[in-house]
């Protein structure tokens, strides 16, 4: 640090590549599982028999496992591997603390295991990509803070003053994901692995999709863009096309992304102005997204010949192309009239898989093909196999996407078809539209299988590459000058000031997390303001609430929405458009995001109890050609009446107008209600113990759906 020293202080250091290897291998392991579960779920849609009548194996429970594994296990480990590798090199510094790295690694794997156990068991909050229950939420927060400390500590010790653009993308990721996760996960525990969110109905929907959209933005986009900005120039050995553009890309992206969430809720009970806000900001995202894609692709200018031979570049070019397509399509789908067609259909499934399989998957594969030979100081075992992977993967992806686009358009056109003369729906039976797209579900599943085969080829290739590595790798020692006040810097007074960025960013993280914590407590104090008074809507009865929790447990929201949009085709098919009071006591909200089956917002009273009883036992006995699995276990398992008092107590504390009497009497009242439903089902020949079964509670809940606005109107 001596100012007078003629030569700079040179330090030697080593990188921690062991942790990078660990995260890379974890990426491969969990990737295989995520893809496999995805294929199983896809096959279950093509053939309902593959649900095997087993509770933990049904689509409603496996689909969240697939999304969580793909995003947080495959994507998460890939991000951590890439960030830890590139940050050390860009900062010319070893990771801040080896122990923190290890805690980060093993903590994250434990969280994944916990998710893989709890989700099939039906322990879920049902908020998409935030399904995990509260103890796991807390663990995620802790591990994320460990990651943040480790990362920012590394930046603090860096030997390179300028922070390359990739680092900025990582910073935005770490800060924003922390805030998103905390705000969306504010919940009151009811038991171990069960909780109610503090937000209800419309509020819960808005918070969830604010989270959901930004999970895509800051977990699947910004970190991968950072990786792209590091690994693509490295792989092609050319500087990024325009560094200036990359900086503009970064700042404009992080400013705009955070506002785009409401585009998931177009034509719903969300106020119009919020919908328009989400739409406008989504369209604005076109510019930075395409700026980034073009910047990446133009980095290859003059080097396109290398794309022919280098598998790393092949994967990255296709990844960028898919990034461009997905970010073109996203704003397009955010336009209200386009959303009217695409929402709730397989178009959205195509959209997200273009992003995940194409952008996240292929960028990760490219990165791993680059990383492994570097880490093991050897050559890739087989370039040919990598090319095989590339082509099988690409063909699989195209099959997947074409099938889903066709399916989405086909079903949407059928569902929207209104006879111009009679003004009636052309296809009044929902199941008709489902039968039409089943063949496409098979094509999709085959596409997924190809993608997995390509991935397995890669795993073999990587395994062989690791085996090629010299047995004893001499630890690499690097040297660089210590970063001093004047190193690499112009001489103005501003710049002479001690490197100030690191403390600032640490403070920013801290502030963000503190804000999150304050917010975590605040809503519980003001919860009563979330529920409008005097709406005339009475809260769920204890039995209905028990049934509602079963609806959440079985993951019904994965296939059924509870939101009738303000669109003619929705109103004709399902009834009056949903109002905020329809879901005002819904914790969590169940608006859903996909209609593999019909909307259920106003299903209550549409069919008799017996219809639902038979439907849950064997859907095809009442709806021919239905693809819904049977739910036999609801007829064996007993409703947990004992916990209802606690449930109502929590709801009461959240401002739901239950009297103390309601709470004390919850179990008793629920039993009494169940007896009435059971008696109605069986008539003169009662089945002993039927009232105790879960199916009764579920029927009570289903028959309540849509009754809220009737009541509020009666009041008016």
């Amino acid at each position, binding site marked *: 640090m001596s100012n007078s020293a003629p030569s700079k202080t040179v330090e030697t250091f080593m990188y921690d590549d062991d942790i990078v290897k660990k995260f890379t291998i974890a990426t491969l392991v969990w990737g295989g599982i995520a893809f496999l579960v995805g294929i199983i779920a896809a096959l279950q849609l093509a053939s309902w028999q593959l649900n095997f009548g087993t509770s933990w194996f049904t689509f409603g429970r496996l689909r969240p496992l697939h999304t969580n594994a793909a995003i947080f296990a495959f994507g998460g480990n890939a991000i951590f591997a890439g960030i830890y590798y590139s940050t050390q090199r860009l900062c010319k510094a070893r990771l801040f603390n080896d122990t923190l790295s290890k805690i980060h690694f093993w903590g994250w794997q434990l969280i994944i295991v916990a998710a893989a156990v709890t989700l099939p068991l039906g322990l879920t909050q049902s908020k998409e990509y935030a399904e995990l229950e509260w103890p796991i939420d807390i663990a995620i927060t802790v591990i994320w803070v460990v990651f943040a400390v480790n990362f920012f500590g590394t930046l603090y010790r860096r030997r390179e003053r300028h922070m390359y653009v990739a680092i900025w993308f990582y910073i935005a990721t770490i800060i924003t994901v922390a805030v998103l996760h905390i705000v969306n996960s504010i919940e009151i525990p009811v038991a171990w692995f069960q909780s109610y969110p503090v937000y209800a109905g419309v509020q819960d929907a808005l918070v969830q999709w604010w989270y959901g959209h930004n999970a895509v933005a800051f977990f699947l986009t910004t970190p991968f863009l950072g990786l792209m900005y590091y690994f693509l120039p490295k792989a092609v050995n050319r500087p990024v096309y325009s560094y200036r553009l990359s*900086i503009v890309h970064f700042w404009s992206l992080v400013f705009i992304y955070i506002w785009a969430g409401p585009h998931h809720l177009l034509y719903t009970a969300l106020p119009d102005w919020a919908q328009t806000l989400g739409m406008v900001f989504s369209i604005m995202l076109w510019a930075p997204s395409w700026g980034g894609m073009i910047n990446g692709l133009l980095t290859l200018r003059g080097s396109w010949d290398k794309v022919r031979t280098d598998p790393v570049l092949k994967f990255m070019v296709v990844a960028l192309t898919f990034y461009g397509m997905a970010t073109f399509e996203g704003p397009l789908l955010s336009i209200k009239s386009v959303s009217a067609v695409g929402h709730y259909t397989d178009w959205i499934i195509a959209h997200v898989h273009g992003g995940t399989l194409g952008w996240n998957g292929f960028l990760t594969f490219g990165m791993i093909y680059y990383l492994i030979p570097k880490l093991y100081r050897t050559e890739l075992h087989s370039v040919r196999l990598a090319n095989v992977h590339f082509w099988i993967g690409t063909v699989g992806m195209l099959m997947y996407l074409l099938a889903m686009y066709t399916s989405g358009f086909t079903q949407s056109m059928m569902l929207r078809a209104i006879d111009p003369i009679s003004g009636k729906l052309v296809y009044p039976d929902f199941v008709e539209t489902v039968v039409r797209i089943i063949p496409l579900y098979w094509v999709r599943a085959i596409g997924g299988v190809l993608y997995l085969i390509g991935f397995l080829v890669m795993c073999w290739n990587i395994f062989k590459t690791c085996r090629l590595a010299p047995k004893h790798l001499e630890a690499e020692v690097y040297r660089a000058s210590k970063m001093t006040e004047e190193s690499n810097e112009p001489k103005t007074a501003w710049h002479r000031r001690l490197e100030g960025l690191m403390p600032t960013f640490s403070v920013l993280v801290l502030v963000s997390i503190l804000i999150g914590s304050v917010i975590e407590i605040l809503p519980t104090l003001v919860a009563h303001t979330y529920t409008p008074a005097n709406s005339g809507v009475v809260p769920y009865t204890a039995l209905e609430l028990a049934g509602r929790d079963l609806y959440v447990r079985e993951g019904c929201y994965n296939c059924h929405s509870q939101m009738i949009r303000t669109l003619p085709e929705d109103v004709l098919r399902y009834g009056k458009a949903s109002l905020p009071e329809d879901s005002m006591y819904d914790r969590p909200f169940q608006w859903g995001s996909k209609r593999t089956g019909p909307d259920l917002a106003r299903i209550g009273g549409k069919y008799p109890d017996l219809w639902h009883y038979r439907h849950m036992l064997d859907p095809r006995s009442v709806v021919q050609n239905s693809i819904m699995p049977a739910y036999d276990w609801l007829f064996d398992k007993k409703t947990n009446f004992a916990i209802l008092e606690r449930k109502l107590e929590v709801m009461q504390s959240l401002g739901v107008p239950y009297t103390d009497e309601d709470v004390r009497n919850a179990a008793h009242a629920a039993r009494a209600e169940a007896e009435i439903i059971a008696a109605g089902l069986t008539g003169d020949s009662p089945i002993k113990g039927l009232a105790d079964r879960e199916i009764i509670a579920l029927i009570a809940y289903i028959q309540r759906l849509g009754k809220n606005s009737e009541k509020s109107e009666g009041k008016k």
Partner: protein
Amino acid sequence: MNIIVLLLPIALTLAGGFAFAFVYSSARGQFDDLETPAHRMLLDSDIANESLKGQPHE
């Protein structure tokens, strides 16, 4: 829509935080040079091991 009372400050805090980070880092010269960083990141770290010099590394 009381939820706006919660979400708006959070969104503004995040956006404001990023705005602050941008102004702060610009003022400190982080973006003065928009050419060399792109080239500098391509250079491999300077290796100190005599035995590994000249070999592919990093």
